[in-house]
């Protein structure tokens, strides 16, 4: 029987590994599409690698969150670091989800304009950054140290919204997702 601690180590390594490759690939995509890196033959390769690894990391993320919750000592969310880990991982999940849905529904058009290129790469890199921050918070929680300690990040401070604000945010976000989905479907090639 695998303990939740071991399962958490396995899943977090999958998430961090996949997101790290995605981050590198999105960076290269950004440089290629902005013309800073002049290797047109790499464009398609890193486009596919970035989105595949992002999708793989996204699939592993819920397992990492759930195993992390069950392996944390004590009952529930009893540390501000755990709460910040939850917020950071869900933020990264949101960035990755938005990035992948855009690429899926809009296809190669996400690379069609400079603004779109910057936005798409930025959302992918933001997802990667959030996940790496989550991993850093995990290191601080379990070992008391992390590679990112040089930045003195305020893991002990929690920005908790009032419930009403969270509810409004949730409804607003869900509405935006639904409307965006409909708009993307209406402009699809099938139509």
């Amino acid at each position, binding site marked *: 029987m695998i303990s939740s601690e071991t399962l958490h180590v396995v899943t977090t390594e999958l998430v961090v590994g996949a997101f790290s490759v995605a981050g590198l690939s999105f960076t290269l995509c950004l440089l290629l599409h902005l013309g800073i890196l002049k290797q047109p033959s790499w464009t398609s390769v890193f486009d596919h690698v970035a989105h595949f690894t992002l999708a793989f990391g996204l699939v592993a993320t819920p397992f990492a969150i759930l195993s992390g919750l069950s392996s944390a000592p004590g009952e529930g969310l009893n540390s501000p670091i755990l709460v910040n880990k939850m917020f950071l991982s869900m933020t990264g999940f949101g960035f990755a989800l938005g990035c992948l849905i*855009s690429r899926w529904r809009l296809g190669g058009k996400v690379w069609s304009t400079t603004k779109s290129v910057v*936005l798409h790469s930025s959302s992918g890199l933001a997802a990667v950054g959030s996940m790496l921050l989550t991993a850093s918070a995990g290191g601080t929680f379990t070992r008391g140290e992390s590679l990112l300690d040089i930045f003195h990040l305020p893991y002990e401070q929690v920005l908790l919204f009032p419930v009403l604000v969270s*509810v409004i945010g949730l409804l607003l976000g869900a*509405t935006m997702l639904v409307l965006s989905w409909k708009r*993307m479907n209406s402009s699809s090639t099938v139509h």
Partner: protein
Amino acid sequence: MKSRFHTVFVLSLLLTCSAFGAAEPGGNGDSIQDMQCGGACHGDASINETSSAILSLSSPETIYVGIPTTLTLTATNLETSSTRLIGLFLLTDTTGHSDTPQDAGWEVLSDANGGAVNYLEQTLTPGQNETSISWVIRASTLGSTTFYAAIHHGGGDSSPFFGTTATGFEVSVEPVPENLPRLAADFTPPTLRTLDSPTELNIQTQFTDSIQFEWKSEDGLISNALVNSTGDNSWITTIPAALQPTTVQWRVILEGEGPEQTTPWFTLAAEESSWEVSENAVYLQAFALLFMIAGIVITLQIRFTSTSTPSKYDETPLILEELALTDAQPPSQELAPPPLPATGLPTDWTKAQWDAYGHDYLAGKYGGGQV
């Protein structure tokens, strides 16, 4: 060829760095661990060097089933890294798999750091090269068990070190004598308490008529506390509040019909009161962040992406196409060639040029106006 050499060089460098970074110089935290932490403390066992530390285990002569006893590990000849951090294991075999006391049917009730785990970390003081720590454990079955101890630490050249006891330490568990005063079999001593408030201890015993309660702080001074009976074999006592996150140890001396018994020293660590938050609010905000961010990203992406496919009511492309066709037609196809001027063709003009651009000439666009 040169780029391939660079690639191989960089990959080799990365692989080398992975070995240097395999250990965790900051420790892994007290926890329940198999030998080598399942590879989580010092990475792969093959990269460990052999520790020069000498480890030895000791216990009371007689151990009864179901009654807590103390197992003490003494480590000498210690050499550590600059962090002076060492990790000590209490194990029941050295296979690196299912080798904790719990796996062999023993319960760790208390450890020296105020927890109840088999892997403990300790930071030595400068110049300290030996240490001693204890675990309070309880056997659930009769028979003999062989215990081992192991150590993890760093070294001067950043290499991880590992060592174990030379031989196993065998203990035999005997049946409990009749009427022996003892702690109740299901009594589990607390290991943590909060700062700034006295700790009330409820102690359950068996075959006990009276108990004495002793506790000592980190300076070793032993104090007594008043014990009140709250029923048959049930006792209550109070330990004064801790003002700092320190540990105290306590034990009871049990008196009854059988011979007097003294329990091991149980460790009780004081920590700040636990941090609390409304979990529902956290989960709600987490999902709000997820949906908001995903929604914003997709909405902006649609806005910034050139999606030029028109709706079925939009006939703009058709009109533009017709306009393009109109613009593409040469004016000579619509207008008949103008009549020749009375003076004949302008100087250097051909008949074909006149047919095509004669109207412009007459409109004054060439050569200074109408003739």
